[in-house]
């Protein structure tokens, strides 16, 4: 990857400080802290149930944290509905199961939020939507419904839908886990291009090849804790903890 294209990290885009989260009696996150600077790309990995999805879902308040403090672009993630909606406008999210709106065409999926949340004119929203569909390489699918698209196409529409809000940060929650193997690459390619354009990204994924290419930082989580943070080079070559070593041997071993 081209270093010149990557802006130097400045003030934090996302700041998570000592955050804990419980589901009933089960503690899903234990005193987690993380700083993501503008333009940085974080890949979060770890065994299932380690709290990685929960952590990124706290950032746009899809889950509510019980203690600690989360700041996104200077706004605190708290109970204030207006503040949460302001944060959600700036934070795009891509889900494992795509979650496209099945009653709307691909194009309508993209224009809905800009029109109703950003109050963009219909024409401007459609122009931007077409531009984004070109960027994710499926302009010809604009007028199809999600049910008529392949998984890979749906996920690329979902990425474009998030980008249509012109977010400052993109969160990816296992974006390729529900895809057939031959479709993973088309989605990862789009994500790599996005990274090269300088987007701030937090990606939960098991795609270690992607992590090597794109991430400035790997965050390894296990049992609700951030166990290890480091550059991909260090993390893959010399994991510091036994838990990370075990995890890497399991996912890279075959």
């Amino acid at each position, binding site marked *: 990857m081209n270093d010149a294209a990557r802006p130097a990290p400045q003030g934090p885009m996302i700041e998570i400080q000592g955050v804990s989260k419980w589901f009933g009696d089960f503690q899903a996150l234990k005193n987690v802290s993380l700083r993501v600077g503008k333009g940085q790309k974080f890949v979060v990995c770890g065994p299932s149930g380690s709290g990685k999805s929960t952590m990124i879902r706290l950032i746009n308040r*899809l889950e509510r944290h019980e203690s600690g403090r989360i700041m996104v672009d200077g706004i605190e993630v708290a109970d204030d509905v207006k503040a949460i909606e302001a944060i*959600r406008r700036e934070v*795009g999210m891509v*889900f494992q199961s795509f*979650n496209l709106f099945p*009653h709307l065409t691909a194009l309508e999926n993209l224009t809905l939020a800009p029109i109703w949340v950003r109050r963009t004119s219909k024409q401007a929203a459609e122009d931007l939507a077409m531009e984004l569909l070109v960027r994710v390489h499926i302009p*010809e699918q604009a*007028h*199809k419904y999600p049910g008529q698209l392949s998984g890979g196409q749906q996920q690329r529409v979902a990425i474009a839908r998030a980008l249509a*809000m012109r977010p400052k940060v993109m969160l990816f929650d296992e974006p390729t886990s529900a895809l057939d193997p031959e479709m993973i690459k088309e989605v990862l390619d789009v994500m790599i291009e996005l990274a090269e354009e300088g987007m701030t990204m937090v990606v939960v994924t098991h795609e270690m090849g992607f992590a090597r290419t794109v991430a400035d930082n790997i965050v390894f989580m296990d049992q609700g804790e951030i166990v290890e943070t480091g550059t991909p080079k260090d993390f893959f070559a010399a994991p510091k903890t036994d838990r990370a070593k075990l995890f890497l041997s399991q996912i890279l071993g075959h």
Partner: protein
Amino acid sequence: MSAVLPRPPVLPGPIEWLRANLFSNIPNALLTVVALYLIWRYLPPFVNWVFIDAIWRAPSSTACRAAAEAGACWAFIDEKHRFILFGTYPFEEHWRPGVATLLFLALYAVSAMRRFWRPWLALVWLAGLALIGILMWGGVFGLSYVENERWGGLVLTLILATFGIVFAFPLSILLALGRRSEMPVVRSFCVIYIELIRGVPLISLLFMASVVMPLFLPSGVTVDKLLRAQIALILFSAAYLAEVVRGGLQAIPRGQYEAAEALGLSFGKRTVLIILPQALKISIPPLVNTFIGLFKDTSLVVIIGLFDLLLALKTAINEPAWSGVGVEAYLFASLVYFAFCYAMSQYSQRLERDLSRGPVARALKDT
């Protein structure tokens, strides 16, 4: 590459069809024979009675029965159709409920076409219902005033059913959303309302509306009988519809809510733009089921003395000149109810097909 073979013909000849569908095994063959016997035994006499031997014109039922054949006495319907359609509405003003009935039918027809599903359709309805009100009540534009005690017949049934659906449906959506609300007061209110109303027969609600409610109103304040019955009908249907809508809401995957939230859509916009269009679409069959029930339930207003289609018929057969035509009268009533309910049912099936196939057809046109 293997050659593409033509699909073998799937249409069998008539003999094969008979064997496969009607005589595939002994019990099936037996059922076929019994069914054929019943049709041969009862269908021709019924057709005779209804059509061939029927009396279409006669001054009274005695005249009908005096005729050589013993067919149905449709002369009754012919003689009494004005009363059946318009009840005790002043005879010389019958064109007014007549036009009102046609307006209702026109509103149904316009609303049935999806290309008219635009915001202005609500205005059309508002104007249509206002016009119907003006026609029925009168008192303005040189129309004589007709108090709603005198409204009756088919037009009253249509009024009760249409206003019932138009007001109960939006109310039910609010109740269903309220029941899923995270606010305890709202949720409790909706749960109590739905369970209370659903657990009570409509008849008792109508009685309460007509007998009990006036006791609680201060003297001098009166709410007219028709309005009270209409409100009872709306409140009752809303409770049922609310559970249907809630069923639809529950079928929407969590991911849809989350995706809408993640885009920054507010609760109202998430609900109106994302959740309800999907939830209502999958609720079409049970919704129409309840609408049909509501249409037929309007006949229960007879017990508080409102003159709907059924009571008009009943009153007509009580006339000495027309004694003994009950079968014809109730067959006719059934036919009218059936026509409206079957139309609703057919329309809902077409709508379901269109909504599930429409997107594909539209997309194919684009590619």
